[in-house]
C-alpha cells in the first residue's frame, strides 16, 4: 500500500514507513536513545527529499520525547533551572541552524551538508558506543578494573556569570550549559535530531551533572528545542510533512513500547554492540555515497520544491 505525501509530493510504501518508525522506536525503547539520528538517514534511503526528512524527523522527535519528559517531571528528576539555560542556548542554536540550512538550500548544497554532518556524527557516536560497550563487556568479566572518576573541574566551569543549579548540586558558569544547548540546537535544525547523543555525554562529562537528572533534563531541552525547530522549518521552508510524521510517530510509539519490553529481557551489553554496529553501517552507507563516483553526475532542483 502506498501513501501519498502531500509536502514531499511523492508516494512511499506505508509499511516501509511504519517499519522505519517501528524499528527505530523499538531501538529507542531498548536503549533509551531518541532515534532521530537513524530515522532521518533511513528516510533519505527510501527517497524522501532531505529537507522534508530533516523537518519531519524533528517533528517526530517531539512525539518520541514528550511522554518521557512528562514522566521525568512527575518524578522530579528534571533540573528545571539547568533545563531552561540549556533551552535558551538551544533556541539560539536552532535559529543559527535554520539560517544555515536555508542558506545552504539556496546554494544547492543542503543535501551535501546534511549527509556530511551525518557521516561525522554517526561515525563519532558509533565509534564511541562500540568502544564503550566493548570496555563494559571487559569490565563485567574483570570486576577489579579501575573505574573512571565522574566529577572533574575544567577551566570552563570557572568562567564568569556563575549560577547555582541546586537540583544538580552545581555552582558553575552559565556559559558551558549555554554552549552545549546551542550546539544541540544547531544539530536539531540541520540534522533533524534531538541531539541527546551529544547532550547526555556533554552533561555528564563536561558539566558534571549527576546521572539521575541528566536524562530528564536533556529530554526537557530536546522537547522544546524540537518543537521550536519544527515551527521554524514549517514557517521558513514549508518542509514538514504531516502525513509522513503520522506514520513515523504511530510506528514509533508502538515500537518503543515493544522495545522497552524486549530491552528488559535481553542482555544490554551485547545489544549495545549491535546498535553501535548498525549506526556505523548507516554512517558507512552515507559516506560511500559521497565518496564513490556517482552513476549520474547531474541532478535537478526546482526552485520552491524539495
Amino acid at each position, binding site marked *: 500500500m502506498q501513501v*501519498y505525501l502531500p509536502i514531499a509530493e511523492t*508516494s512511499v510504501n506505508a509499511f516501509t514507513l511504519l517499519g522505519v518508525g517501528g524499528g527505530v522506536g523499538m531501538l529507542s525503547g531498548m536503549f533509551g536513545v531518541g532515534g532521530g539520528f537513524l530515522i532521518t538517514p533511513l528516510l533519505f534511503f527510501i527517497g524522501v527529499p532531505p529537507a522534508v526528512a530533516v523537518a519531519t524527523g524533528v517533528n517526530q522527535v517531539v512525539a518520541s520525547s514528550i511522554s518521557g519528559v512528562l514522566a521525568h517531571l512527575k518524578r522530579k528528576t528534571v533540573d528545571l533551572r539547568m533545563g531552561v539555560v540549556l533551552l535558551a542556548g538551544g533556541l539560539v542554536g536552532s535559529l543559527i541552524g535554520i539560517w544555515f540550512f536555508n542558506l545552504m538550500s539556496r546554494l544547492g*548544497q543542503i543535501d551535501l551538508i546534511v549527509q556530511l554532518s551525518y557521516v561525522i556524527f554517526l561515525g563519532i557516536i558509533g565509534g564511541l558506543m562500540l568502544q564503550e560497550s566493548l570496555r563494559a563487556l571487559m569490565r563485567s568479566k574483570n570486576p577489579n578494573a579501575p573505574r573512571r572518576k565522574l566529577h572533574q573541574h575544567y577551566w570552563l566551569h570557572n568562567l564568569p556569570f556563575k549560577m547555582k543549579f541546586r537540583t544538580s548540586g552545581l555552582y558553575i558558569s552559565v556559559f558551558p550549559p549555554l554552549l552545549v544547548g546551542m550546539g544541540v540546537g544547531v544539530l536539531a535544525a540541520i540534522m533533524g535530531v534531538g541531539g541527546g547523543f551529544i547532550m547526555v555525554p556533554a552533561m555528564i562529562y563536561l558539566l558534571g551533572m549527576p546521572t539521575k537528572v541528566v536524562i530528564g533534563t536533556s529530554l526537557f531541552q530536546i522537547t522544546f528545542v524540537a518543537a521550536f525547530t*519544527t515551527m521554524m522549518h514549517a514557517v521558513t521552508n514549508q518542509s514538514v510533512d504531516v502525513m509522513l*510524521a503520522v506514520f513515523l*510517530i504511530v510506528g514509533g510509539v508502538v515500537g518503543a*513500547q515493544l522495545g522497552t519490553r524486549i530491552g528488559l529481557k535481553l542482555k544490554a551489553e551485547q545489544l549495545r554492540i549491535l546498535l553501535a554496529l548498525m549506526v556505523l553501517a548507516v554512517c558507512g552507507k552515507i559516506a560511500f555515497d559521497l*565518496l564513490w*563516483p556517482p552513476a549520474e553526475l547531474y541532478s535537478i532542483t526546482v526552485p520552491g520544491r524539495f
Partner: protein
Amino acid sequence: MRVLWTIFFLLAALPLRAEEVIAGLSQNAVSLTVNFEGSEILIFGAVRREAPLPEDSDLNVIIAIEGPPQAAIVWRKARRAGIWVNTDSQTVRAAPSFYAVASTGALSDILSIDSDLTHRISTRLAIFEARNGADRTDQAGFTEALIRVRESEGLYQSHEGSIALERETLFSTRLTLPKTIVEGRYSARIFLLRDGDVIDEFETFIDVRKAVLERWLTNLAYDQPFVYGLLSLFIAVFFGWGASALFRLLRN
C-alpha cells in the same frame, strides 16, 4: 439546395483540412489521493476524412502530454577533496514537469525539423533554456542531462513507434503518469502528420489535483505555515503522549 451548398463549402474547405483528428482520454482528471501510486491514461482517437485516402504518402500520429512547466536548476557534481559535490549549475528557464511523446514511428522519420520547431514536439524542444547562458555547448550538456535524469525517473518518456494506427483511421495508446507528478493542468496534444508536416492538431487537458485532505494540508502549509506548524506539533504531542497513556492503561 441547402445541402448542396453545404457540401460545396465543405469541398471548398477540403484542401486545408482533408483529414481531421478526433481524440479522447480515458480520464480528464487525476486525483492525488492518499494511496496514489501513479496513473495510467488511455488515449484513443480516429482520423476523419471526407476525401479518398491519398496513396502516395504515409499517415502518422504523434501524441505529446505535457505537465506544467517549471524553472529548474541543473547541477553537475565534481570531486572536491575526495567527495562528490555540486560544483557547476545551469538554470533552465522552463522545463515541463512531465513530458511524454508517443508516435507511430521514429520521430526523425515522421516529423520534419520545421514542424518540430513550430509545434515544439520533441522533448529537447519542449525545454526552454535560459538566454543568458554564456557557453552554448556547455548548456546543451546540462539540458541533455535534465532529460536523462527525468527519463530515468519516468517523468520524461519517449515511446516512438508505440502507437498502432489501424486501417489508417483508428489509434490508441497508454501512457503512465508516475507517482511523482506535480499538480496542475496537463495538456495532451495529438498531431496528425503527412510527409513530415502537421496536417491537423487536437488538444485536450488532464487536470491533476491533490485530493481533498492532501489539498487542504498543502494549502495550509503554504498559506498559514504557523497554523500548520502548530497542527504538526499537536499531532506529535497527541500521538506521543496519547500512545504512552494508552499503553499504561492497557498494562493496568
